[in-house]
């Protein structure tokens, strides 16, 4: 059940009706949200719902033990149990086959023939997200930042809450659990903002991201040699906006849907392509993941508390693992290494934000192209694909075969990235209800018009 489907629309409207009009008690609503979240997940693949439940059960009980335990050694053991359970699940489903193949390749390179075993298990949707979410819970309890949630239902809802279950944002227990324990309070402004965010997310995902993919990106990456250098360059720019609109569109819908139920999720994207440096980029792109990596990996490794060399090491390792988080493939590792390297490079060169407008523009322009190169590493399907794409891109062949519609959508994507959505939302919020409903209807018709093919959200594969 993807967000841009009629089934989800029916599911959401039905759930909202039940939430506000039928199940009026707090406990009833907790059960409703939990059951609905599991139903949402089981609409994908019902057998894997057990994994979320396992993760929830383990971390719920470990959280309680962690809080009560006074002995540091035993505390560490409990934490280790939580880490081991969650990371094992992630390791088995996501990384096992990749590491098997890599081991075989290494041994093969050394002259040894090794037979490796592969499992046929499908990657559970959202596993990277909900395991990180439950890990943040136990880690925060271990660090004394939060108390454990006494009620399993609330904790299970925190883990499985459907708007952010499959592709984030990764919500911290400290942010979400108190909201689950508060009395329901939804204002009209929240509802307007929620509905507007859902509309914005749908437009970004369907009208921009999917259309760019269909018009150019998919074909360009599948057969780069059939295109000219200019085509490939614009396709690369298009991919930068495709992934931004796809992922931020999903986040917008997730945040908007959560708002309709009275929950406030943190912003996950903040005009990332306005960044002038890598460190700024990671405060604007996939903020929930980058802050998770900062708080639980980078700082745990030592952060910048040690020598410069140690800081660079920590940055590099954090970005490497951040790349690996995205997928069990060499291109994601290289993408992580690339971002780690430019983070270190900018530190080494002590690059700070320019004080003049032209200087800042130049910095942003340069950094944007560094990010775009990173997206090339991210998008390719293999190293051969990367080499083929790069070679054709650098052949400087002329001619453009991309359609005017493609350039129009790319222009809309570029411009929309810089628009302040809050102002538009405030303006729309002042419309009478009938006019707002006409706006929502127009958006749905626009989304229906552009829904040419069924395309999953890019981050579902992580």
């Amino acid at each position, binding site marked *: *059940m993807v967000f841009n*489907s*009629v*089934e989800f629309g*029916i599911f959401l*409207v039905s759930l*909202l*009706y039940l939430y*506000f*009009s039928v199940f009026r008690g707090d406990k009833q609503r907790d059960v409703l949200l939990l059951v609905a979240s599991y*139903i949402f997940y*089981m*609409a*994908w*693949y*019902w*057998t*894997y719902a057990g994994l979320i439940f396992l993760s929830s059960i383990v971390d719920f009980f470990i959280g309680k033990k962690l809080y009560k335990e006074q002995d540091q050694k035993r505390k560490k053991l409990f934490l280790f149990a939580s880490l081991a359970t969650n990371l094992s699940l992630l390791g088995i489903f996501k990384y096992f086959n990749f590491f098997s193949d890599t081991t075989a390749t290494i041994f093969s390179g050394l002259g040894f023939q090794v037979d490796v075993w592969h499992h046929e298990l*499908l990657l*559970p*949707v959202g596993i990277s997200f909900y395991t990180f979410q439950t890990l943040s819970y136990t880690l925060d309890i271990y660090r004394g930042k939060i108390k454990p949630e006494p009620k399993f239902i609330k904790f299970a809802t925190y883990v499985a809450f459907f708007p952010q279950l499959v592709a984030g944002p990764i919500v911290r227990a400290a942010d979400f659990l108190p909201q689950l324990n508060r009395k329901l309070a*939804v204002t*009209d402004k929240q*509802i*307007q903002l929620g*509905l507007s965010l859902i509309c914005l997310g749908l437009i970004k995902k369907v009208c921009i991201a999917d*259309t760019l993919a*269909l*018009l*150019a990106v*998919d*074909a*360009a990456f599948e057969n780069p040699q059939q295109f000219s250098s200019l085509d490939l360059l614009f396709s690369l720019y298009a991919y930068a906006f495709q992934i931004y609109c796809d992922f931020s569109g999903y986040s917008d819908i997730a945040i908007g849907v959560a708002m*309709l139920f009275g929950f406030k999720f943190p912003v996950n994207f903040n005009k990332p392509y306005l960044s002038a440096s890598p460190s700024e980029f990671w405060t604007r792109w996939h903020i929930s993941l980058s802050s998770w990596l900062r708080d639980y990996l980078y700082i745990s490794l030592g952060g910048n508390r040690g020598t410069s060399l140690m800081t660079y090491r920590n940055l590099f390792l954090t970005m490497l693992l951040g790349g690996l988080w995205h997928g069990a493939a060499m291109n994601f590792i290289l993408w992580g290494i690339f971002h780690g390297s430019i983070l270190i490079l900018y530190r080494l060169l002590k690059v700070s934000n320019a004080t003049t407008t032209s200087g800042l523009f130049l910095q942003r322009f340069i950094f944007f192209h560094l990010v775009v190169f990173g997206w090339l590493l991210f998008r390719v399907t293999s190293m051969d694909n990367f080499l083929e794409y790069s070679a054709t891109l650098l052949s400087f062949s002329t001619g453009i*075969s991309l*359609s*005017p*519609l*493609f350039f129009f959508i790319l222009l809309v994507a570029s411009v929309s990235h810089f628009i302040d959505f809050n102002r538009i939302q405030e303006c729309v919020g002042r419309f009478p*209800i*009938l006019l*707002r*409903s*006409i706006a*929502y*209807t127009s958006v*749905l*018709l626009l989304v*229906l*018009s*552009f*829904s*040419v*093919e069924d395309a*999953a959200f890019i981050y579902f594969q992580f």
Partner: protein
Amino acid sequence: MPVSLRNSIFYTLLFLFCIEGILEYRGYTRGFSTLIFGTPSKTYARDNNENIEKSYGPSAEFPFRSSIIEPSFKTAETVRIWIASASYAEAIDRPVLETFPSMACGALSKSGVPCQMLNASKAGWSIKNNIEQILTEGRRWQPDYILLYQMGNDVKSLLQENDRRSNSGNDLDNGIFDVVEDKMQKLIEQTNLYVHTREFVGGYILISSHLNEQIPELVFREYRSRLEAYIAACKQIQAKPVLMTFLGRNRPETADNIPLDLKFQLLKYTSLISPETWPRITSELNKIIRQVAEQHKVLVIDLEKAALDEPDNFKDYFHFTKIGHKKVGEFVAKEMKDAVNNS
């Protein structure tokens, strides 16, 4: 439910329903079946009193779109021809006598070969459906010749099969609502909102995109298998198989000049291949038809070589106009007369 949320959802659904209602009424008045207003009471067949005269099928006892005959009503001189095809030969929008099977039979009879026609064509059918009907009904009707005119639906289904095989394992297709989702999707595809938005915007997006131009090997392989299975089915009921090469509106050499309306139509049919590839597919599969016919010593009615693929003969890429049906019918009659005289 908060009033603003309830009102927003209510008015949005109301507007969507109103737009759908208006579009459906417009479609209904133009003779299309609709979800809300149903099917218009007047159909082509009733307008021409076909059912009232009860001269033509299809009916429960006579599953063919031709003049009704009894299975045993056949003289030694009469040639009974079975047409295995799809909408190209069924042509539900045309009077029965203006379809090429009927025209072929009429022309054959006029030329001195008494003919009975069993037009076993059904819109949406592929060769597999034709074979199934041959095996279930063929022995009862004992046709002398079975003419196969099929390509479009088989190509579409094979492209879909290839797409499914390429994408298997990518989808977590084991959800508890998969059946409901499929039914929901089919329902949505019947709404006018879906049809109109796809046609006007979706079609233009697809035309602007880089669609696949590679014809999967599976299409060639499986089409050949289907032709061979059809020949085997004909022989099983002791009928002579006859293959017909397929006609599309454009020849390969004019593939660059496919009109926009034709592109839209082909993309509505399937978006798994670019519109420009269809003339190439037609040409390649026609070569396979000739190869299979030569290999199995089966007669080929070569419509492609008869150069009947001019635009005037077609109302879209696949379906004939009145002139097209006439020309194809006359050519089929001429070829069948030669075949009958030589047998």
